[in-house]
């Protein structure tokens, strides 16, 4: 029996195989979504009545499951399902420290009111006033409950400029964690390639540290792209990781600059594919601007990386001025 969904004034019968997310979008509802595979949680909805199906609640925090939250992108109900209007829950957090760590990049350290369970490389939605931005977590739960974000301060960025100037004790709210871009155990010898632009370094740095901590023995290569040779950050920390035990390769790539120096010069995708021409059997992480992430994802796949071995986190930038209710949650990263 085909499922039937209701949400506000929307009331429609799902087509065979259609997910709740597809149904909601077909019905004209503005629902954010990203992975459409039950991982990123961007499309999370709450069932007020009816059963969204066990698969759509798999992996969710038990407290969320109990309240009826489910992932619309993998929900295929067989009966009537009434979906509540409203936003997913959020926890409070205090800013403890704002430190400049690069050109127009600050590290924002947060103390959440309750410990957040997350995997290094996942992201949170940060809510400040009526604005929501996604930021990747550069920290790891082994560092303690504190959370680190790398924030690019945009010239007209409402949230990023507020964060850069925030005094210790300033309050925000957090939703999440979300995202499927993190290290998974099971193949410790597998070569890892991580490529990121700008503050896409935040999740990659966290994932690289996490991989090592979890006993990864295979080579790890991290390629960081920036526009100019002076646009890099965390350089000393990453060079230190190269010097430590294990095989860790750190490559910086700038679009402009002097050729032949320590920094690779050229298009980040082209340089990456030149340095890593064969990715058969590799695990790949790509974080940064969407066009570039999607193009490189395809190239990595064509060069032999399995589709399930490629994790991506595309950073969407908030449109200015922001629409009152955007269908896609913007990233401020």
């Amino acid at each position, binding site marked *: 029996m085909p499922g039937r969904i209701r949400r506000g004034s929307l009331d429609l019968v799902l087509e065979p195989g259609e997910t709740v997310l597809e149904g909601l979008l077909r019905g004209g509802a503005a629902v954010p979504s990203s*992975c*459409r*595979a039950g991982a990123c949680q961007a499309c999370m909805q709450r069932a007020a009545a009816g059963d969204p199906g066990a698969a759509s609640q798999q992996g969710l925090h038990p407290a969320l499951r109990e309240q009826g939250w489910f992932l619309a992108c993998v929900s295929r109900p067989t009966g009537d399902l009434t979906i509540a209007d409203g936003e997913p829950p959020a926890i409070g957090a205090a800013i403890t420290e704002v430190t400049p760590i690069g050109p127009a990049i600050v590290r924002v350290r947060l103390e959440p009111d309750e410990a957040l369970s997350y995997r290094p490389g996942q992201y949170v939605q940060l809510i400040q006033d009526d604005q929501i931005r996604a930021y990747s977590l550069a920290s790891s739960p082994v560092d303690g409950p504190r959370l680190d974000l790398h924030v690019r301060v945009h010239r007209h960025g409402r949230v990023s400029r507020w964060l850069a100037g925030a005094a210790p004790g300033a309050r925000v709210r957090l939703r999440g964690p979300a995202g499927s871009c993190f290290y998974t155990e099971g193949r410790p010898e597998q070569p890892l390639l991580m490529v990121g632009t700008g503050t896409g370094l935040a999740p990659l740095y966290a994932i690289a540290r996490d991989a090592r901590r979890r006993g990864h023995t295979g080579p790890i290569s991290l390629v960081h792209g920036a526009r100019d040779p002076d646009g890099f950050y965390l350089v000393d920390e990453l060079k230190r990781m190269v010097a430590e035990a294990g095989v860790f390769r750190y490559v910086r790539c700038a679009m402009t600059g002097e050729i032949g120096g320590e920094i690779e010069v050229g298009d980040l995708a082209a340089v990456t594919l030149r340095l890593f021409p064969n990715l058969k059997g590799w695990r790949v992480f790509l974080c940064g601007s969407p066009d570039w992430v999607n193009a490189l*994802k*395809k190239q990595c*796949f*064509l060069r032999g990386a*399995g*589709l*399930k071995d490629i994790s991506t986190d595309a950073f969407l930038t908030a449109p200015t001025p922001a629409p009152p209710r955007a269908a896609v949650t913007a990233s401020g990263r």
Partner: protein
Amino acid sequence: MTSLYDELGGAVAIDAAVDIFYRKVMADEKLAPFFDDVDMERQAAKQKAFLTMVTGGPANYSGKDMRRAHAHLVAEGIDDSHFDAVVGHLAGTLKELGVDDAKIARVGAVAESVRNDVLGRNPAS
């Protein structure tokens, strides 16, 4: 008779086949433009369903589904040559996985049965 799907090793083997098949399709200059702007995970899921169907696995595609799924591509100009190319990559994928020619021919016959639906034609034409 056991299906080729079971002989290959079921869902796990089909996952491996999808990567090989999809890579061949994307590397094909004639076909690549039709895949330029698609979400790769969703596309892979569709290809998995397709490979499951043509190898006799648990799939419930109807001709109507195939028509609807490809209508926008028909509008963009796909024709027999594109269909032939995809079937060629399908055969190449199975060959790479060590499937013998007789079984590949069987799979080709199943794929052939949806040609008119994919290309949005009436069976008689």
